[in-house]
């Protein structure tokens, strides 16, 4: 029972799912491999990325932020300008096209911040698929605008009340729906997570970020960046931008996890940052670093940004961390909120709270670098969806 594509990233990844789903994963892998070789499929995908998503997304030189920080020159990859407001649409469209190819009619998706739910609902509307989105009731409350958007786009949003009522539980429910309806339903997984072949498929559909950014850096800055920074929830925007530079050994790759209220508080989602709670385990079909208690029960996580609030990290990141091709750090809620405001004021860009974690790392790192050095930061999404949260968090400070 061999696979067409490597199912593991070193010791991580794999397919830890009930037997009922194994045939669907095998079918998906086959469909993906065939599609990648099919010019018609690639043309259709690339065509939609251009005409519907608005790709290539721009690369913006952040002049005032660079000056303010007084160190490295900072460039922003503007996934916030992709249709629907985040990188999630790249993967959602790619998978939705695969769904058509497999002859399935219905997709289920999980969502945390609502961005992947919106992207899935959008792709489903565009391609005429039925779409059900599972979302934890805690996330529904903090990302309300996206709930309305999904509904307007014709998706059914099903609140999840089990467990911690956040992304982890939304994934559980999406998988349960998928197990039940697997013959005509595709699970449109939104991050570089889950059982093989999802981490590979999602990386490939998000690799457009890195491919474009590399070309744009060479064009605009005349050189590759010294450092590439991205936030890491499940890891899809990070793996997408990293993949463009992974073969350029001199380029340093930095992933930023959610530090929540601080690592010491225990209230965070820093899978790589908290050795007391993160161990290699298996959750949602993949073997990777997982925040858990001593008994192997998955831990509650916390982040101001719903999209980073998850107990596990994509398996390819686990491998890249072990082999030190990438380095991982975290930003706290407070640091992210500060970075959010800084970017608003200096560049006229309202970033998603997820992306603000990457910006927070830029703020820490740029001043320590020389003026002729270059940082590329992936601005994974825009912050309109977060306004309620930000107003609440900042109170009268706004």
């Amino acid at each position, binding site marked *: 029972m061999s696979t067409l594509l490597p199912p593991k990233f070193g010791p991580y990844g794999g397919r830890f799912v009930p037997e009922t789903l194994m045939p669907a994963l095998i079918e998906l892998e086959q469909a993906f491999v065939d599609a990648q070789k099919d010019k018609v499929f690639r043309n259709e995908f690339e065509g939609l990325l251009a005409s519907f998503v608005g790709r290539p997304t721009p690369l913006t030189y952040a002049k005032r932020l660079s000056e303010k920080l007084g160190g490295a020159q900072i460039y922003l990859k503007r996934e916030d300008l992709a249709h629907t407001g985040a990188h999630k649409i790249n993967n959602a469209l790619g998978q939705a096209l695969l769904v058509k190819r497999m002859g399935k009619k219905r997709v289920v998706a999980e969502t945390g911040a609502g961005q992947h739910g919106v992207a899935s609902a959008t792709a489903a509307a565009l391609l005429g698929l039925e779409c059900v989105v599972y979302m934890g009731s805690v996330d529904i409350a903090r990302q309300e605008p996206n709930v309305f958007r999904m509904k307007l786009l014709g998706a059914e949003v099903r609140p999840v009340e089990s467990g911690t009522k956040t992304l982890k539980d939304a994934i559980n429910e999406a998988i349960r729906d998928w197990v039940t309806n697997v013959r005509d339903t595709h699970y449109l997984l939104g991050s570089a997570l889950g059982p093989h072949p999802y981490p590979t498929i999602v990386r490939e559909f998000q690799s457009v970020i890195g491919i474009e950014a590399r070309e744009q850096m060479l064009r605009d800055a005349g050189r590759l960046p010294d450092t590439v920074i991205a936030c890491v929830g499940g890891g899809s925007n990070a793996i997408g931008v990293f993949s463009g530079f992974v073969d350029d050994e001199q380029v340093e790759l930095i992933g930023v996890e959610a530090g929540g209220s601080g690592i010491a508080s225990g209230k965070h989602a820093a899978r790589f940052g908290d050795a007391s709670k993160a161990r290699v*385990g298996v959750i949602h079909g993949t073997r990777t670093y997982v925040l858990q208690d001593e008994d192997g029960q998955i831990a509650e996580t916390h982040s101001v940004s719903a999209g980073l609030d998850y107990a596990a990290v994509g398996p390819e990141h686990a491998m890249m961390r072990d082999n030190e091709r990438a380095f991982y750090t975290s930003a706290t809620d407070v640091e992210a909120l500060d970075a959010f405001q800084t970017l608003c004021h200096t560049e006229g860009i309202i970033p998603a709270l997820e992306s603000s974690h990457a910006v927070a790392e830029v703020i820490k790192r740029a001043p320590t670098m020389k003026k002729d050095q270059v940082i590329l930061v992936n601005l994974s999404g825009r912050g309109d969806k977060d306004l309620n949260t930000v107003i609440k968090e900042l109170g009268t400070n706004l």
Partner: protein
Amino acid sequence: MNRIENAFKNKPIFMPYFPLGYPNLDTSIDVIETLAKNGADLIEVGISFSDPLADGPVIQKATQIALEQGITVKKSLAAIAELRNRGVTIPLILMGYFNPMLAYGLEKFIQDAKEAGADGFIVPDLPPEEAGEFQSLVGDLPLIQMLAPTSPNERMESIARNAKGFIYLVSVTGVTGARTSISDGLGDLIARVREHTSAKVCVGFGIGTPEQAKQVGLLADGVIVGSACVKTIGSSEKPVEAAKQFAAEFRSALQELKK
């Protein structure tokens, strides 16, 4: 003859599932003892996990309560030893998700389970592709393989070829939980499995009443009853008495089929 083979001497067998720690540890041990002494031929003893993605609402809720009550893998294994002390002689199969076993330490988990008196393992999120490490450590205790209605013939054949103990056939595409009726295709599904294996075939997921158990018992070597067992016993004021009655009813429904 090992305990599992012995249990299959008179088929079809009755195999209830019950999670340790629900509604609390002491009661769950009493319930399992009672099931064992009143007609269960084999018991699937549940080890709880925070994210049981193959389970429907009844088992989700029960295992959640078990966790809130403080159940752990260690306590679960001690409970198996306690059940053996109380003279439970039927096979006890540990059923749980992979992560808590990994966290305990896989080798130690299997060793301690063996010492406690467990007879095998069912791990729903460990398909054969990922079971290598477990299989290499498990020795003569079976890691029960699962088949599903979606399994194509070639998979059935390769999985069934290596089956030990018995095959756990999932009767429906879906999560655990009682259904109002037995799926029409079950007869064909069992026949398809039997084409590929002479192993014992036990059917689970969706069986809720003694009548349904009988229907399935006509076709299969064993009938697995999970959610209905958990719900009936868990919602009773007197769980131990409910367990006694539950086991007796299913036992008598299957009794006339036994041979």
